[in-house]
């Protein structure tokens, strides 16, 4: 059963290139730490009123402040602070009563001020923790816990666009000043899969909180990984930093590759240098980035234009115009993924693997909850089997994200209802998924009629199919009569074929047994 369950999941997110896989090497320990930059979902930037729409025309969402026009000043966006605090609370952080902003200096064409406003000395929050299930192919699911050292607010930089042909660089400042939360995790991880699982869980949490869209493809969530290897009992090795990881899948791949690379390098007598490497998703390898900065000194300095950020930590307090209450924000935290998993196990009697799959695919969870609410008599196992084995498999087959599948919870409920009432069989149900995906908004009954999907349960019709099947496959019939019960499957298959997959198999089996006994 479990094998069956995990199959689609392996295909979906844990496909690891066999050549990248690290052979169990008990000699080497790998240590992985993550730094995540999550863009805060907000209608305006961290310190200015300009918009944050992704893909807006170049340089159209740039306030005077974002362009560093002299004399302009930052004004802290309250909504971003609230989102930061909510995220910190959901990750079990200690929110600091007073946090401060600092300037981090470096010259870059897309950094208009010549410094980034960040939180270096006193961050918004510290000392959190994230616990998450780690799913590795061929291994039992286990839980891992990683410390969140710091959560800080900071502004994003702009983007440089290089035109190699015309030999010029262009700057787009739409991204300059977008609000970011930087989450610095302790190096408590060991493998790429663990890292990918951490990020997956973090994304689930941030999406529940609506504090980040987590769209990695838009750069709304960026992951940098610090990786080192060492021998058991020896001090930690020199670490490399891998940047430019564009998807959850790449996290696992990039880290596995880098661990492997380091081990090979050292095994071949080489040394690891402290460097920044970039993940090349096409070549499936990490490559050293040209080191433009020789030992950067960021010359941190307090940001003098922003007073210290005070929050109210008193239990039971309310937010005021001047002061955000942490207690009041904690009331707004929704149910978090791990809590949902526990609820699925306790209330719906699902096994924990199923609960993990549902929670990790929020749309499946939504379907599950909607369907079970209105189809009380259908066992939850039937529903989860259908969602995971049939819907998810179909989506994987046609390479569509289950989020983008056209079927609504109502569609799925109707299919399950017909399936449960034996109006249609499982084959027809699977066909309906495809039909509904390709013809959204079509009535399910119309589709059943149009495509003649009703299950055949009429005893006489079935008996005649069965007789024909026995006639067509006399050898199978003979084997069955001799006691080889498995031969019945061949006959049932024949009936299925004869009936164009529409015969009610439960009745077919009964009928075949009866006919063959006679």
């Amino acid at each position, binding site marked *: 059963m479990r094998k069956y369950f995990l199959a689609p999941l392996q295909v979906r997110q844990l496909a690891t290139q066999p050549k990248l896989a690290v052979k169990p090497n008990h000699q080497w320990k790998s240590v992985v730490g993550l730094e995540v930059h999550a863009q805060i979902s907000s209608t305006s930037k961290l310190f200015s009123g300009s918009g944050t729409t992704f893909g807006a025309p170049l340089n159209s969402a740039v306030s005077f402040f974002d362009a560093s026009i*002299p004399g302009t*000043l930052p004004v802290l966006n309250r909504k971003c602070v609230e989102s930061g605090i909510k995220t910190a609370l959901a990750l079990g952080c200690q929110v600091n009563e007073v946090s401060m902003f600092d300037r981090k200096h470096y*010259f870059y064409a897309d950094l208009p001020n010549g410094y980034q406003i960040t939180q270096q000395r006193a961050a918004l929050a510290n000392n959190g923790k994230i616990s998450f299930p780690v799913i590795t192919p061929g291994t039992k699911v286990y839980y891992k816990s990683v410390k969140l050292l710091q959560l800080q607010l900071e502004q994003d930089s702009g983007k440089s666009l290089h035109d190699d042909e015309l030999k010029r660089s262009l700057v787009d400042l739409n991204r300059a000043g977008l609000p970011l939360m930087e989450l610095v995790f302790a190096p408590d991880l060991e493998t790429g899969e663990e890292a990918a699982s951490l990020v997956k869980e973090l994304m689930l949490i941030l999406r529940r909180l609506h504090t980040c869209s987590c769209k990695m493809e838009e750069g709304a969530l960026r992951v940098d990984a610090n990786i080192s290897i060492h021998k058991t009992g020896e001090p930690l090795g020199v670490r490399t930093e891998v940047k430019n990881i564009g998807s959850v899948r790449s996290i696992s791949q990039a880290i596995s590759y880098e661990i492997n690379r380091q081990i090979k390098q050292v095994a071949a007598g080489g040394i690891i240098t402290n460097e920044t490497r970039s993940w090349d998703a096409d070549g499936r390898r990490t490559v050293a980035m040209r080191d433009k900065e020789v030992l950067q000194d960021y*010359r941190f300095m307090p940001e*003098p*234009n922003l*007073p210290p950020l005070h929050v109210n930590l008193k239990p039971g307090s309310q937010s005021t115009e001047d002061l955000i209450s942490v207690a009041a924000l904690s009331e707004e935290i929704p149910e978090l993924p791990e809590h949902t998993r526990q609820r699925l196990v306790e209330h719906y009697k699902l096994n924990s693997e199923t609960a993990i799959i549902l929670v990790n695919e929020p749309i499946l969870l939504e379907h599950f909850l909607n369907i079970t609410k209105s189809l009380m008599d259908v066992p939850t196992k039937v529903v989860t089997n259908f969602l995971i084995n049939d819907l998810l498999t179909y989506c994987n087959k046609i390479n569509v994200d289950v989020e983008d599948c056209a079927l609504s919870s109502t569609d799925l409920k109707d299919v399950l209802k017909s399936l449960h009432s034996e109006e249609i069989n499982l084959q027809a149900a699977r066909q309906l998924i495809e039909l509904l995906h390709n013809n959204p908004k079509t009535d399910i009954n119309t589709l059943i009629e149009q495509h003649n999907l009703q299950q055949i349960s009429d005893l006489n019709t079935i008996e005649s199919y069965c007789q024909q099947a026995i006639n067509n496959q006399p050898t199978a019939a003979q084997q069955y009569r001799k006691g080889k019960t498995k031969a019945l499957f061949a006959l049932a298959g024949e009936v299925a074929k004869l009936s164009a997959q529409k015969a009610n198999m439960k009745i077919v089996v009964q009928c075949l047994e009866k006919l063959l006994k006679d």
Partner: protein
Amino acid sequence: MRRHLQLGIKQLTASYADGHISPRLVADTALDDAVKLKTLNAFVRLTPELALHQANESAHRYKEGQIHSNLDGVPIAIKDNFSTAGVLTTCASRMLEDFVPPYDATVYARLREAGTVLLGKTNMDQFAMGAGTVDSIYGPTKNVWSDDLSKDNWRIAGGSSGGSASAVAAGICYAAIGSDTGGSTRNPASYCGVVGLKPTYGLVSRYGLIPLVNSMDVPGIFTRSIADCVEVLNTVAGPDVKDSTTIRRPFKRLQLPKLEEIDLRSVRIGIPKEYHCEGLSTEMLETWTKVADLLESGGATVRQVSLPNTAASIFVYTILNQCEVASNMARYDGIEYGHRATDDRSTEQLYAHSRAEGFNHVVKTRILTGNFLLLRKNYDHYFEKALRVRRLIAQDFAKVFEAGSVEENVDILLTPTTLSDAPLYKDFAAQSNRDQCAVQDFCTQPANMAGIPAVSIPVRLSKAGLPLSLQLMSNTLNEELLLTVASWIENQVGFDCLQNKHVYEARS
């Protein structure tokens, strides 16, 4: 002719309301005067079209009886480090020589909405780094009190807001806006014989003021009288959502008691002994003593106090100044705006050349020093330590204003603003910018370190015929008492800025 020059702002606007005189005529005269007094180099740029437009609008409002404020129709000037939409704002530097800001600084926006008439932008030291208004790409500003304006024989106007001080002292405008980071308003006010107010940090918005040291910068006000200063302060002060460091409490307009109602018996004046420093001229010391005596005879309690960390202040100020300068100047890279060098072989080359060409020696020196002081290995030893001493300096003030018993406290501190009357340009220019500032800012920068308000008022003329001024400081947000005492002194000493014969000679 030009009798309106002698009027205070209140009388001027009363004359507008009476119809005795029109804002248009006053603006015309002011623009004429600005041209005639060009030799002072107070303005880096006149805005005649804007001024005449604003004056006409104001005249119209007076006719309709719908004036915007007590300042409607009053000609003003603004230092060239305040953003004025559509009007070049250069900080007197090559870096911003062609920079036309797209927005108004809050201070100017409020003055504009109040109906004032902007005559132009005034001269300054590059990016306000200086105490003489001698380091400007437009050349130095000369002190209107100079006996001899030829060659190097003239007196400096002080700085860095020397242009604004000169414009007011020469009677071209009734009020001018400057900035004050370590004394940049009070110092030229002192040398030019006008009132120069540095308000409490956070009382007046810095939005649109191109920063020197964000944690000390405040817009400053130049006028010829305390009463005029109050009018301007009441117009520009108060919270601004665009500047998070403004004091959020609503601003209560200042209302000074009538002169005859001022009672000094409840006022305690402190004379900080540390301001009796090396280099203080005899004339200045006499002036200081004279006014202290005057206050005492007027009923005030006058007592010596101590601000023990004063001597350290100028060093701390220098460190913090250079660090913030290094940071604030980082934006000038020639990419978005400002001077861009032609060498664009690489981004690094472009930065290096743009900055090398755009900044003068003083700015570059401060950038280099500031970046050095901010290096990880130096931060604690310089910047962090300077912040700690800054707190001690602020505590010195808090102690004399707040802590201790009533007998030990004082309400107002009386000190010199500058150590002497205005130096000759040739003497001043012989020193390095660093040494100039160390002397010039000695008495003024502690108020910036503590964020407290301070005002410079002219008292009398020196033997050389130059203004000698004193500084008053009070506790945070105590501008009302500060200016009340200042106006009492003003009335007692009867200094008339326009008694300066040069003001009239130059016009004829």
